[in-house]
């Protein structure tokens, strides 16, 4: 069962507090206070109090004045005024100054209290959900802005390149030159294609749900290692794989593969052209419910001052090879879904090592 709803009741008459608590304590977690300092103490200690009842007629301060005071410091709890005496002016005051949710008349009837609490709780939940959704929306908006900017460059860039090439082709008569240009056009289109595929990854990571299943790393790597082996052979890069899994591991294979593919393709892509013994190493070790994956390369490395930014959306730390600025951002999003962590170590012109740890589900 869910945790009991926390409510607070302030009244200067001890008898009322005792009666209130006796009536409601089975279904709710009830805090009581005979004065305002006592009430403030409860509010500081329990920021998750959802409903506050307050007596209107108290010495020093009225209930409305108290509610007016805490409106800005404790905006979340729903405020309910308990009062025996009501005239229209105090009702107006209570609503306008105290921003109260309900009145309950003294002496109270239990059913009225319960219904007030339940209604207030619904409001409270709707409000909290609204603020969570609001934060998500703000984040989505700011990513949308980045997207709009990126679309203007990363999609329009290759397209305008192709248009320019068609324009220049009109004055071109040499077949060899034409072929050279076609090769570059193909490269630009491939970059655009990668961009669109990564955008799709991005979207599924943001919206998709997790599908947890047994993961056999050996089997999983077998599925795609051949693609990298072919690439490794043609580019003359050594590819070493070491997998050590002697216990079951549960996770979602889709984001897991995305992480591996991004890290591996980066390791192959950003090789140092001046290094003779080019090498990419993949190590996977599953131990005590944690998978540790390391991907290291003998590549160009990443400058120290770029290291903090490589996981940002659309950040590119190299002009070698055409990156989309999506890859490591997607890796980070995938790991967030899997509760995983990533560390990076890099030495310029020597190589980079990414270390990923993911707990089993």
């Amino acid at each position, binding site marked *: 069962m869910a945790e009991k709803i926390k409510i607070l009741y302030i009244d200067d008459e001890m008898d009322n507090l005792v009666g209130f608590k006796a009536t409601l304590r089975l279904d709710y977690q009830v805090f009581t206070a005979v004065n305002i300092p006592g009430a403030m103490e409860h509010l500081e200690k329990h920021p998750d109090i959802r409903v506050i009842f307050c007596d209107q007629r108290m010495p020093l301060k009225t209930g409305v004045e108290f509610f007016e005071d805490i409106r800005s410091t404790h905006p979340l709890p729903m405020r309910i005024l308990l009062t025996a005496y009501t005239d229209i002016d105090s009702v107006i005051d209570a609503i306008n100054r105290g921003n109260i949710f309900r009145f309950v008349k003294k002496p109270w009837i239990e059913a009225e209290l319960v219904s007030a609490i339940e209604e207030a709780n619904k409001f409270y939940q709707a409000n909290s959900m609204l603020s969570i959704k609001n934060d998500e929306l703000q984040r989505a908006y700011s990513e949308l802005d980045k997207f*709009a900017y990126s679309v203007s*460059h990363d999609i329009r860039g290759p397209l305008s390149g192709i248009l*320019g090439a068609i324009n220049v082709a009109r004055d071109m008569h040499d077949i060899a030159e034409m072929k050279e240009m076609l090769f570059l056009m193909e490269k630009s289109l491939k970059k655009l294609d990668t961009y669109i595929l990564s955008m799709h990854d991005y979207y599924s990571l943001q919206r998709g749900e997790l599908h947890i299943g047994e993961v056999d790393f050996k089997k999983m790597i077998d599925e795609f290692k051949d693609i990298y082996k072919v690439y490794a052979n043609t580019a003359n890069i050594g590819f070493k794989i070491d997998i050590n899994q002697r216990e079951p591991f549960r996770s979602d294979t889709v984001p897991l593969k995305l992480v591996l593919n991004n890290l591996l393709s980066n390791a192959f892509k950003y090789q140092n052209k001046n290094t003779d013994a080019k090498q990419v190493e993949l190590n996977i070790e599953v131990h005590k419910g944690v998978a540790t994956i390391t991907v290291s390369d003998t590549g160009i490395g990443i400058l120290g001052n770029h290291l903090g930014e490589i996981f940002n959306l659309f950040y590119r730390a190299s002009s070698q090879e055409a990156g989309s600025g999506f890859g490591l951002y997607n890796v980070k999003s995938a790991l967030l879904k899997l509760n995983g962590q990533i560390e990076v170590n890099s030495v310029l012109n020597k190589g980079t090592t990414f270390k990923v740890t993911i707990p089993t589900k």
Partner: protein
Amino acid sequence: MELSFIIIDDTELDHFIARKMITNANSAFKVKSFLDAQQALDYILANEIDASIKVILVFLDIYMPLMNGFEFIEEFEKFDPTVKDKYYIVALTSSIEASDVNRISSYEDVQEKITKPLMADDIRVLINRIAEKFNLKIT
């Protein structure tokens, strides 16, 4: 030849196109290519310009990784006027973002801007205008 060219762009295809269009306009034009803006800055600082060259036309892409076009201009602005005077910078951008276009136009050292795709006619018109403006002999 009194006019020479530098292209700064991270896309090889764009280099190929610009170079082709320039040499189609006149096969005697010399073109220097940089995929990385920092290397272009280093080159400009380190190299003495041949006395026969009066103007170097720089095609500068804006959206590049590492050092972008804005950062290039901000570094270039710090150069000695005697160095800067010989360079005529044309910003080349695929951007349709108004903020980018306005920002690049706000730099004093950016003489013109052209929106990609680059067209052969744009280059011819540009070269003729610069030749006239600086009274260059193009042979």
